[in-house]
């Protein structure tokens, strides 16, 4: 299966982590895939009609999958989850400890334009020191890449299957 190969590739291709002591090893890719697939099927079978809202949900589902797979140890995953949860309900479901916010050794300086931009891009990047920000950004990038690959493979697979089905549908029709 093309998708499986992609999945395998995803599973095997792991970005080298030169700083194992600093950055935690990335979780297994298959767990993210499975989780996402589950959620995807869930979302798809909802009664929701408009594709845009579904797209929204799917996007959020993807983000939450990413965040879950990354684990609660990453600040960005926590922040992302918090953001997602807050969208649905006002009170946050989870109140994970935020040591970074509480213990601010360094106040994030808004001087550097690039740094500020990075903080905006990475979820939860506002309250972190620069060092930590870079760390989180790296992890976030890894997760994003994995998520994108996963979704892309699903899309490809589905389009492939869809086309196959279409062809198979047509054939019996032709024969008929």
């Amino acid at each position, binding site marked *: 299966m093309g998708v499986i190969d992609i999945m395998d590739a995803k599973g095997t291709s792991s970005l080298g982590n030169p700083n194992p002591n600093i950055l935690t090893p990335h979780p297994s890719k298959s*767990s993210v895939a499975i989780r996402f*697939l589950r959620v995807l099927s869930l*979302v798809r079978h909802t009664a929701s009609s408009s594709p845009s809202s579904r797209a929204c949900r799917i996007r959020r589902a993807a983000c939450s999958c990413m965040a879950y797979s990354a684990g609660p140890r990453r600040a960005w995953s926590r922040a992302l989850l918090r953001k997602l949860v807050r969208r649905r309900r006002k009170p946050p479901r989870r109140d994970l400890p935020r040591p970074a916010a509480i213990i601010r050794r360094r106040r994030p300086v808004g001087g550097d334009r690039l*740094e500020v931009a990075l903080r905006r891009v990475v979820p939860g990047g506002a309250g972190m020191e620069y*060092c930590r920000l870079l760390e989180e950004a790296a992890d976030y990038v890894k997760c994003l890449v994995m998520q994108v690959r996963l979704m892309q493979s699903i899309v490809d697979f589905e389009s492939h299957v869809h086309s196959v089905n279409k062809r198979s549908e047509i054939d019996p029709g032709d024969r008929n």
Partner: protein
Amino acid sequence: MSSSRLKGSEVEDKGIILFLFPGQSKDKSFTVAVSEDPLPRLETSIDMNENKFVLNSHHDGGEWQFNTPAMSMVPLPLSAPSLAGGLMNQNTRSSYLSTPMVEVFSPGQWNHHPTSSPNMALGESNFASTSSINSIPVGKPVAISPRGMLVSTAPRIFPTSLPHFPVDSAFVERAARFSCFGSGNFSGINFFSSSPAMAPSNNEGIGDQVQKDELLQVDHESLNGSTMKNQGDQNSQIGNGESRVVIFPEDGLEGNTGSTDAALNSSSSDRGVNKRRKTVPDIERDPVQGGRQSSSETTKENIENKQKVEQINSKQIEKNGKDNSEFVKEGYVHVRARRGQATNSHSLAERVRREKISERMKYLQELVPGCSKVTGKAVMLDEIINYVQSLQRQVEFLSMKLAAVNPQLDFGIEGLLAKNLLRTHGSSSSATGFSPEMIYPQAYPSQHNLVHTGISAMASHSDTFRRAISTQSTASGYKESPLQVQPMHIPWNEELITQMAYGANPSNPQNMHSKADDFAI
């Protein structure tokens, strides 16, 4: 340990040299070794790995104090096993430098007591701690040399710079001989007079390695015969009463020995070099306890408490122009100041931070495609930001695409995918799978049944499937049999259906917890 006071009003004719060897590690004991016959004893002691050697010189009118606590403060990296502890409280008599010089070889601090009186009080014969000296690796006490040199050369040097020091030829010779302190002009050593404080602030003992190197070099130079003029210059530079701190390498930097050796080689030309090489590595190898930074702070305080501190100005260090820079990270961050760089604790911390940042940037560079050629932080950051934004946009786009696909097809596809995935990857750690399980129902409260179905679709093993179902039902309190599965055109429908039938009998919820790992999803 209490500080002991040594009183010496006269210079010992015998040329007794008093060495204080701080106790190993935290033991703030110092062994004062006095050998009447400096040569042989010291040689032996010198061969040891010693790291500290304190000459206590007191500036108050001929009294010197071993400030034990102060010394203790200095974290001696000396691994020297035997630095015997036991500061002696001795009121030594007579022979001691009137301006006793205390040099503490501590990982970075040396307190040099300003010597006011011209006499150098050299230990007391009582001290007999020569035995304890064993541990002192004076070896070629290069390292010690500065100190040792101080001791030995003191008489020599002092004549010019410190005129108050008695020039005792016999003593000088003895000192020179035993300490192998090179040829002996330890002119580089300044004993200073008045300032009690060793501008320890500079000392960030931390950076010390470099400074130490510097010191050694300086000393070496002085050894090599720099004239008293140099000394004078140095003195002048330092200013009267300025204290110089010799910072000793705190950390046992593994790589340092080599580099230091190289540095030393490069730096010093002569005789002392060999000696230095020997001692320096020893010193460097001494394990450092605690982070440099923390120690630097403590050492700072220590310095203040210390009687004498010998400092080397960073200027002087820069003058020497070594390329020695070592950076070793251990549990705590141990940093050695690079040559020619400020050894301020702040700047060192800054440097550490900068290194961390650059390390992370490099890692990011690997992650982001096409950034290997980019140099410069700004451009890199820009690239990274763009990349992250593009990834986010891709996710959104793909999610839109996924939303648009026909659900019927998708379901089968997903199931198939999941099945294949499970087959290929086996049962990975599925414990994590449970938490989202619990969450999803919350997140999508209206789709319990679908989740249920989804799970059933995904499960490949009947028992795990059962567990999954039970989990699901436990989580959502939902016990419907998964008959809502839509008709699938894919051949494994039957399998699914049978599995679902199985799932109709929910097993105990405990399975979820106990067999979480078996859950293949």
